[in-house]
């Protein structure tokens, strides 16, 4: 039953997290406490902030969705069409460890979508879904014409 399954995931899932390190500044600061939507079944829209199990290390990482399933991205020197994967980038300049290091992230690595900051009190509120204001994100999404199979 989908409802029971969803409830189980909600109860067991991670729904409160603390942010460490700085690759998401200024949107998220180290020490921010966030609520997660712990039961996403698919990748949230571009610009959403998600928590994933980082490929390779398995550590929980928080990044922004730059491109989702069906998008074409420039991975290193090649254009790749994403399947059930997302291309994640940090907000903070060139120093973020993200899809540029570990490539597209599969759906089963997705832990949750960060949607609300409940601490510190000064900055309580919804976490804005940046409209790939990241020019970088837009730059990495290529036009389909460039796709080489």
């Amino acid at each position, binding site marked *: 039953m989908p409802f029971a399954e969803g409830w189980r995931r909600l109860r067991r899932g991670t729904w409160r997290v*603390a*942010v460490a390190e700085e*690759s998401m500044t200024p949107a*998220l600061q180290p020490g921010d406490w966030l609520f997660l939507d712990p039961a996403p079944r698919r990748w949230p829209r571009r610009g959403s902030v998600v928590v994933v199990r980082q490929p390779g290390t398995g550590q*929980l990482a928080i990044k922004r969705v730059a491109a989702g399933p069906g998008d074409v991205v420039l991975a290193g020197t090649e254009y790749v069409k994403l399947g059930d994967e997302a291309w994640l980038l*940090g907000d903070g300049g060139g120093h*973020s460890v*993200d899809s540029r290091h570990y490539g597209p992230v599969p759906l089963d690595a997705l832990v949750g979508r960060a949607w609300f900051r409940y601490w510190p009190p000064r900055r309580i509120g919804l976490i804005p879904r940046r409209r790939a204001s990241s020019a970088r994100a837009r730059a990495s999404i290529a036009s389909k014409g460039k796709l080489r199979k």
Partner: protein
Amino acid sequence: MSLVTRWLKPTTTVYAHCDVPCGIYDPHQAELAARTVARMVELLGQLPKENPTEADRQKFVRCVAVKEQHAEIVKHEIQVIWSDYFKPEHLERYPDIHDRTWKILKLASKNKQNIDAQAASDLEAAVKEFSDIFWSTKK
């Protein structure tokens, strides 16, 4: 910490990873790429000079492409360590870091332009020395 904040505090930490504070630097990638360049030059040397078959021609193109790609990787990796990792105190110990980096970048470009076994082995050696300096600053 008050009871309320203790109750509110998340139990899970998520990392907005960035390579500067975590200090994840490793010249291994550069060494591997330099080795690849040398190996490609070696493979290119083994190809027949006269009457190449279709397969030889395809291998030639492939080796050249890989060689140039990996020379570019050397440049990138060395540049990142040079600009992001090395600090003034390292420079005091190794005043020739800038010069070495510059020469490695030049050598890598030379390897991109030419098929030159000498340049390839020079590059490998230079990257190895760079790597040794890197690791000695970690001690």
